[in-house]
């Protein structure tokens, strides 16, 4: 979806400002928010692409004026509500919590290190043969799906070169909305001048991970 989360190349955001002390968490609420989001992942009720898509559907004005863990809060409540696992009425304490079932049990403290050290699996065993070769020129499609996509706006309709071929991967555009449609993932190299025209810089290059569906042959 074309919203403000897709901010590569936007103007007017100001200087990059590093904090002086850079605490890992700012206050207890950030710790709890970070932990809840990860603990929920262990239940098998939503995948990473649904999670990202829930965050990017936040109202654009609110997204830009929120801290990152506020965006996580918005996304987690949205997802759990849409999945029927919680309701705003329950959150407000207006009704008693209803019992729910999940594919996997809640993450236990004993299992945290194991689960986090294992991580997810995004590479898919498949016989699909990549349509493009390393070194081949490709062009990104000019697509504007209303749903989730990981093809940034700034990289649409541009020519690049396949830099690396990463194998068949879970496809976020499908996985965020229903059955997955795994496909080859590539890293594509673009020149800054190709992406930004005369406002680009001669010896700058941008490397972006892109799925096969985003790409077409350069004739």
């Amino acid at each position, binding site marked *: 979806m074309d919203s403000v989360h897709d*901010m*590569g190349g936007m103007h007017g955001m100001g200087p990059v400002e590093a904090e002086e002390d850079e605490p890992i968490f700012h206050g207890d609420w950030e710790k709890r928010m970070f932990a809840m989001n990860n603990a929920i992942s262990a239940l098998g009720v939503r995948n990473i692409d649904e999670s990202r898509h829930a965050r990017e559907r936040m109202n654009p004005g609110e997204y830009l004026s929120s801290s990152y863990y506020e965006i996580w*809060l918005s996304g987690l409540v949205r997802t759990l509500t849409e999945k029927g696992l919680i309701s705003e009425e329950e*959150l407000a304490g207006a009704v008693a919590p209803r019992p729910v079932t999940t594919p996997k049990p809640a993450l236990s403290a004993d299992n945290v290190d194991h689960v986090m050290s294992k991580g997810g699996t995004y590479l898919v065993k498949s016989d699909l043969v990549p349509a493009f070769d390393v070194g081949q020129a490709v062009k990104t499609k000019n697509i504007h799906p209303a749903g989730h996509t990981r093809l940034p706006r700034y990289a649409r309709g541009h020519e690049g070169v396949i830099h690396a071929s990463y194998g068949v991967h879970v496809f976020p555009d499908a996985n965020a909305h229903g059955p997955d449609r795994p496909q080859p993932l590539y890293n594509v190299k673009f020149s800054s001048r190709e992406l930004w025209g005369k406002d680009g810089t001669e010896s700058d290059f941008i*490397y972006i991970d892109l799925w096969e569906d985003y790409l077409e042959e350069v004739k």
Partner: protein
Amino acid sequence: MAHDHKHGDPLPETVLRVKSLESLLVEKGLVETEALDALIDRYENKVGPKNGAKVVARAWNDPDYKRRLLADSTAAIAEFGFTGAQGEEMVAVENTDNVHNVVVCTLCSCYPWPVLGLPPVWYKSPPYRSRVVREPREVLKEFGTELPNSTEVRVWDSTAETRYLVIPKRPEGTDGLSEEELAELVSRDSMIGVTEALSPNSAEGD
């Protein structure tokens, strides 16, 4: 201004809502309080940029390890036991005299947790995400990093589950230093690619 509450000064309703959400999830059996504590402890105290610094220091010191790291980064990093969430598929990219690499996630905040821990606020912020793909040299200047025009800049936008780790250039004057001493020079920012590694004369850690 809207972003005044961004750093450690949340709206009271945000704090309250997070508390309500945790109470509700615990009551429903969807999360366990002790598991949340363990997750916080892991990423506050156990997993952080000291991990990545060990990887880089070994790559500087051991040519065989560097070859393995560049050929199969995930496996080479796993030799240290650094694996898992947000680092399932690692790719290390090497700075040289002619090439400088820098990493971003323009769409959200993808960051290699097993080697760098959790991202700093600026990495997740609109200024960094919007600008570093368009004017990386200007952004680097704000971090005090001036690159000659002849240096090629490579910006890696983490749009998939691949996570990029920059191997900064080994600083001058570090011959004979041990891996532990070298690791002290490998700052978090140098592994994101916004700065160079610290020089042995100025090193004060991160």
